[in-house]
């Protein structure tokens, strides 16, 4: 897998960011994309370690907490098989377009190539895979084939709420996501600035999730304008995300 000598032949390279004087004029993203040839060389740098630390996900060791199959899709990218790479990537990651932009890339921190040089540009490869798939229209709503007729309430529409909603919906449950704010996305929408993660990208994913059958209730705060008792009565299961405000242990309101 990968190119065994790739890490010796190619240097780590990231696409050039937009020049500072141009960036000053707007709030748009400043990271840019590589073309496939550049990207293949970066994928070739992956050494396909026998013990790949990049996806151990063990907090004491490092690596991807999602357990992304990084060496596998690096290899597929090296061979120019972006669509195959996308399939491997979405096996473990619900929203690569978010993580590929804002993840702190623990994988790169634990990459073996980084021991004596620069690590593989895992994060950049990830975002390239998913963005290419969006460009080519390959990311389409996946309507669940069967229904369990079970209703699940997910409180909080931040990254983890969306991920839970996505997985539960794919299992065939009827999912309703409660969001206190006027827009879906939580931290993604209200915490991360556009230059890192554009709101359009968040909305693009929310639209897909909606098409897949997830119901989003915005401006709805459980316990205030939607009673907790009602939620318990109407749903078979309740999923409260850690940071949903107003619950014990949740994120404290700062404003």
């Amino acid at each position, binding site marked *: *897998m990968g*190119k065994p000598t790739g890490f010796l032949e190619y240097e780590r390279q990231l696409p050039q960011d937009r020049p500072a004087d141009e960036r000053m004029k707007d709030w748009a993203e400043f990271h840019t994309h590589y073309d496939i040839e550049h990207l293949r060389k970066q994928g070739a740098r992956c050494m396909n370690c026998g013990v790949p630390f990049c996806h151990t996900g063990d907090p004491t060791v490092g690596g991807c907490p999602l357990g992304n199959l990084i060496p596998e899709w690096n290899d597929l990218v090296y061979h120019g098989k972006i669509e195959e790479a996308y399939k491997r990537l979405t096996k473990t990651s619900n929203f690569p377009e978010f993580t590929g932009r804002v993840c702190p890339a623990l994988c790169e921190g634990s990459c073996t190539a980084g021991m004596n040089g620069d690590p593989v540009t895992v994060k950049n490869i990830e975002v390239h895979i998913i963005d290419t798939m969006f460009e080519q229209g390959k990311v389409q709503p996946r309507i669940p084939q069967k229904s369990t007729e079970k209703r699940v309430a997910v409180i909080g529409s931040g990254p983890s709420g969306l991920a839970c909603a996505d997985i539960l919906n794919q299992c065939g449950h009827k999912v309703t996501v409660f969001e206190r704010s006027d827009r879906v996305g939580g931290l993604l929408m209200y915490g991360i600035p556009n230059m890192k993660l554009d709101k359009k990208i968040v909305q693009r994913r929310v639209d897909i999730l909606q098409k897949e059958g997830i119901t989003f209730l915005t401006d709805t705060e459980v316990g205030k304008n939607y009673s907790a008792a009602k939620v318990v009565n109407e749903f078979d299961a309740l999923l409260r995300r850690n940071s949903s405000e107003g619950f014990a242990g949740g994120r404290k309101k700062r404003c």
Partner: protein
Amino acid sequence: MAVACLLGAEEFGFATGPLITMGCVMMRVCNLDTCPVGVATQNPELRARFKGKPEYVENFMRFIAQDLREWMAKIGVKTINEMVGHVEKLVPKHLHHWKAKEVDLTNMLYQPKICSNDSERYFNTPQDHELEKCIDVNALVRLCQPAINNGKKISASLAITNINRVCGTILSSEITKKYGAEGLPEDTINLDFSGSAGQSFGAFQTHGVTMRLEGDSNDYIGKGLSGGKIIVVPPKKAKFEADKNVIIGNVAFYGAVSGEAYINGMAGERFCVRNSGITAVVEGIGQHGCEYMTGGCVAILGEIGRNFAAGMSGGVAYVYNKDNTLDAKCNKSLVLIEKVEDSEDVAQLKEMLEKHYKYTGSKTAKAILADWENEVKNFAKVIPSAYKEMITEIKRCKAQGLSDEDAIMDAFIEVSKTTIIKKTERSAVNG
């Protein structure tokens, strides 16, 4: 370690642990020459990355020893020897894991009553290999003393039976002790045996020793052959046809390093497996011939079995292929089948056959040599493709005026670049 010792272990091997202390990250690319921490590689650029120190291993072993000491103190023993085999000190953990709970350790924790004195659990039966009774100690070493001491030529005839195993090995060891790996000049010691030789006849036989056997031999003849010459011919009285009958057993010349072998008869299966440098001529072989061979040259004048040259990564085999069965019987995943046309090849093969005839009087060799111009066309050359590429590259580097060593290194770097790319492409195709 403490558990292993209580279960009966007397010695302990450490491999991965110490390697990790030296910087190994378990990349599992030891075979690709791309070890990124410089442990398992010949690439100078990568070797420069090696960060290990002997002290790290020392430290690791100290920790192991200390930890073991603490466990020993807990169970009240002072030495490892006192501890060996005391399974009664082990108490099984009862786990609730769905798989682990079904494991019954009773038999493993059984304490056999082997002796009255507990200390005898450690090393209670000394091994006796009865070396003083073997043919080498009894006869050969004494007989060849003048050769070992003064390099005097020795010729002798002896009878052999199949209880005489590893015949000639201690003799070779005595020679090596005095003369090192170079041994003695060719044919200093000539031993003629008659009868049926036991296993490993001429194993590790060194330079200067020629052993001729009239009769037959059991398995492992010439195992690890290290410079000596082995000749096997059927008894003069024998009425069978030499090229149709097996006269040496299986796994002949396993892992042989250097030397020569001439067999006037067929060999069993796995002939010349892992041969890395000997020249051998044989009249026919069984299955899996030349498997994993890495060097040397083999000529087969008759039948070959299935799966010939499987995993063969070096060396050359000339096969008499008059009936055109080689293509079907050869495992072609690593090797190429070529015609014997190159003048160097022809000369090499002819020399091998001439020697074979000279030493064994082989009828097959005689017939082939009599009509050499035509018969040479019936031979096929089996050569590993990667080996051929390497040989060609070395020749090219040498032609550019590089020294032998530099030529090998340059050729290695050049070839490994391209082969690794090929491998990757292949794995991509295979998915």
